[in-house]
């Protein structure tokens, strides 16, 4: 029966088309998830809910950087402008507190990407929040609690979040300063906040 063949073939094709198209961004970011949590960037896997900052020496010598593991997935294309700090969040066990230092006018941004569809739901950074020191609380979709008065809330639509921080490097001599600032972009679980 030709009709039956066509029906099975056609319906499987349409379902496959839709599922692949719909999940393309998710599949792409799954590669990042593996790169961060399983492979790491040359110094072992990056634990969940922590940020990993690209070492100075790798930024200073991009030829060595690109031969290292995980290098290409960190930046879309090649980047000589910003130091990058990257991490994968799981907010199931509670919110994460993000600390950003005083950047003193320097360009920086912390991008919060929803890994299920590769869209950015929030930014902390020069364009959106300014360059002063700040504390932000990244909360999952089911969290119900009181945001501490000294923190601003960043609500995530999912428990998984891909976080990418970028801090401008003015020039080679500025690299240590920029790196020091980038390393001060830090995550801590909310309940540990007071004891640290």
């Amino acid at each position: 029966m030709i009709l039956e063949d066509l029906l099975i073939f056609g319906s499987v094709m349409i379902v496959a088309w839709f599922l692949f198209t719909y999940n393309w961004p998710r599949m792409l970011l799954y590669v990042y998830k593996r790169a961060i949590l399983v492979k790491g960037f040359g110094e072992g896997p990056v634990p969940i809910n922590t940020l990993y900052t690209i070492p100075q020496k790798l930024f200073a010598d991009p030829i060595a950087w690109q031969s290292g593991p995980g290098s290409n997935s960190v930046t879309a294309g090649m980047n000589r402008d910003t130091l990058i700090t990257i991490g994968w969040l799981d907010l199931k066990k509670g919110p994460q507190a993000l600390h950003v230092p005083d950047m003193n006018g320097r360009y920086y941004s912390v991008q919060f990407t929803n890994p299920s569809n590769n869209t950015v739901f929030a930014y902390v950074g020069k364009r959106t929040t300014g360059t002063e020191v700040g504390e932000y609380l990244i909360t999952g979709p089911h969290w119900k609690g009181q945001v501490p008065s000294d923190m601003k809330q960043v609500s995530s639509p999912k428990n998984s979040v891909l976080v990418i921080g970028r801090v401008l490097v003015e020039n080679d001599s500025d690299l240590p300063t920029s790196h020091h600032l980038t390393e001060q972009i830090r995550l801590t679980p909310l309940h540990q906040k007071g004891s640290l």
Partner: protein
Amino acid sequence: MNSRTFYAILTVLIIVAFGVVIINSFVLNPTSRNVRNDVIQGFLLGFGLSFVTAQIYARIKTSKVNGWTTMFGCGEPSNGFLFRAACAQVFLGPINISKESMYWTRDADGTGYLLSGKHDYVMHFPAGQLPPNNAFWSLTMGDAHNHFVTNPIKRYCVSDRSGLVPNPDGSVDIYIQNATPTGHESNWLPVPSGNFKLWLRVYMPGQTILNGEYQVPPVVKVS
């Protein structure tokens, strides 16, 4: 009807249609022929079509100016699933939204030939026409596989911070070539002898970029 309900209804319809066909073929009217072939072929073709539709959609959404291509509006949570797939194919990563940063790229010279270190190129920014921004801009070069290429002056990009020297009339020329441009070393972007790609980044782009008024200058081959 918002897009979320549309997708939900579409998904349900597809699953129902799929289920009806499967139940009919496997349970109600089991036949002796091999149904697996239909399923495998449908799955593979669906995958192929998914890739192709996203590519076509990306082509439609791509803005091309003077040989530079970019896409506006990626990364916004309100984007539909086709656009999200297209963005994921063009920018292989968690991209910024346009307001945060714009990326242009090119691997051809605008006349249909690939950019190659066998030729010399000049990118000419007229006076006051450097990319408007509130953060920084940069022009970065990589080989055909998006890798940095070693060069004698260890320069991999030129930018608002790299000490570009303007011409007397205020315009800025960037010399994109393999050999040192004598007298213009400060404005030299060294390229490999083979094919290469260029990336132009503008972070916190100005209003004229976001509304499409600003035109990135062409990369012109010097004969």
